[in-house]
């Protein structure tokens, strides 16, 4: 055995050697980024259920993928590039991915096919009580208003030189809805998925820091102190009929929303109908956890250094923040309008909850309302716009998908 030759082979096969070849240093930066994301997820508790998985997926891909020759990588960007290239023999071939891909390539098929986001929506539906929205349908207007950031960020992205498909994917960050952002991006601009998913989930975690200054700037002390009347009690029959009506209406309006809205409403029907408690329990807990594991790690895998470290990522991060802020502004402005029209009966703070991010945004409305008036309980009133925002962002995604697919 030639020891020197064996050592050379081991060195050439090792990942350490790859850091010193062309572009390998970028992987080192991404490894540092993944450690930062792990810190934010574990220590600062920023959306830990997803961010820890995303960060570790990011770490794994940047430890194993250094370019198209990385045969032992867990995720292969080049395979997915071939998958998307109409000229290539493996165009839209899941078989090629299964044959040549690594573990994360195979898990990523669930993202690419839109399975994980839809199943997450099913779990969200099973966990959501739409009662506050049914008792106060005006909440839907606030949910619509809070999609302003989606379309302003879309416009901003076009101004910064992104294509229509990329701009649509960036804009949807403003919907503050991770599964919707992933669903739309995998269909329109899969090469931006890593940056968009990380931006969306990071900003959702930062809602308690992003929204309050905007809420205080746009509302007066008097408006924030408004105590809202208790909403009517919603009957069981109404709660059962609601998901059926919404599914029929929204899917007929925008068929491209069928996977998201269909799964959201099916999950909710299981919750409310009272005869499928086992299914509702499974979807809310076991299935949701399993899908979260797969979704987090496979989305993190898309952050390979050669793709992620670019000026585009910085632009996406900035546009994502702007989208969140403008969505909050949109909800608050319409909330103020409702305050005026209702003669001061509606607290405009509930408008900011229209950015989905259930239930974080509603909690922020509650906290700000209670700061202004300790006797104020806005949580249930804010849950209406909050869940309306989920439907609103799905409609916005459906519109963008219909226009740009």
């Amino acid at each position, binding site marked *: 055995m030639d020891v020197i030759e064996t050592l050379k082979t081991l060195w050439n096969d090792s990942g350490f050697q790859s850091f010193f070849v062309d572009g390998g240093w970028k992987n080192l930066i991404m490894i540092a980024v993944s450690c930062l994301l792990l810190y934010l997820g574990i220590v600062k508790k920023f959306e830990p259920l997803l961010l820890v998985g995303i960060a570790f997926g990011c770490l794994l891909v940047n430890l194993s993928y250094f370019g*198209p020759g990385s045969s032992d990588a867990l995720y292969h960007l080049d395979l997915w590039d071939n998958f998307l290239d109409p000229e290539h023999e493996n165009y839209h071939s899941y078989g090629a991915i299964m044959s040549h891909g690594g573990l994360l390539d195979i898990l990523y098929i669930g993202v690419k096919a839109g399975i994980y986001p839809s199943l997450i929506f099913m779990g969200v539906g099973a966990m959501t009580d739409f009662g506050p929205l049914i008792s106060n349908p005006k909440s839907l207007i606030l949910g619509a208003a809070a999609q302003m950031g989606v379309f302003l960020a879309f416009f901003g992205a076009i101004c910064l030189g992104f*294509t229509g498909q990329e701009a649509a994917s960036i804009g949807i960050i403003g919907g503050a809805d991770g599964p919707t952002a992933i669903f739309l991006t995998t269909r329109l601009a899969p090469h931006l998925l890593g940056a968009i998913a990380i931006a969306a989930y990071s900003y959702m975690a930062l809602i308690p820091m992003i929204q309050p200054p905007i809420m205080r700037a746009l509302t007066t002390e008097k408006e924030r102190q408004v105590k809202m009347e208790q909403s009517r009690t919603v009957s069981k029959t109404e709660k059962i009929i609601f998901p059926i009506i919404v599914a029929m209406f929204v899917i007929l309006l925008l068929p491209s929303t069928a996977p998201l809205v269909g799964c959201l409403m099916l999950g909710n029907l299981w919750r409310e109908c009272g005869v499928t408690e086992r299914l509702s329990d499974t979807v809310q807990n076991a299935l949701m956890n399993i899908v979260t594991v797969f979704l987090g790690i496979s989305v993190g895998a898309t952050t390979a250094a050669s793709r992620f470290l670019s000026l585009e990522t910085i632009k996406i991060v900035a546009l994502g923040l702007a989208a969140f802020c403008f969505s909050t502004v949109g909800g608050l402005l319409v909330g103020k309008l409702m305050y005026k029209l209702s003669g001061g009966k509606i607290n405009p703070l509930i408008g900011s909850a229209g950015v989905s991010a259930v239930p974080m945004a509603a909690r922020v409305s509650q906290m700000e309302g209670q700061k202004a008036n300790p006797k104020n309980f806005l949580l249930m009133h804010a849950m209406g716009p909050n869940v309306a925002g989920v439907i609103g962002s799905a409609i916005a995604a459906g519109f963008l998908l219909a226009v*740009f697919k």
Partner: protein
Amino acid sequence: MVDITTLAATEAVTEAATEKGDKLSIGEAAVTAIFGYSVVFAGLLVLMIVLYCTGAYFKSKEAKQKADSAAEKTAAPAAAPAPAAAQKLAPGSAGHVKLFDVPDKEAAMIMAIVADKMQKPLNELHFISIKEVK
């Protein structure tokens, strides 16, 4: 481990993927954004109207049910002098105990449970009537 010669090819594919989408003019983008925002508003506005209609239907149904039960309650005192006579006694009614829609075996079981819960002998308790609440 790394085939450097193919890196350039990957970057070319990346660029192609980036270029694949349509470049929109700022005017087109503004129209798309306004139109999209309007579609979201219109969709949720119509949904709101549908919810108001279903809500109104259920509220009126609930109000009707309340009115019916209130009417029953007000009618009850008027018919008070002969309430028991109006209702048919169930088979098994004996002595002072009157059973309404309750089989005698169930009545015996209920009396036994009540006696057990109260820790009193059954012969010290006086049952007047047992009626199934529907």
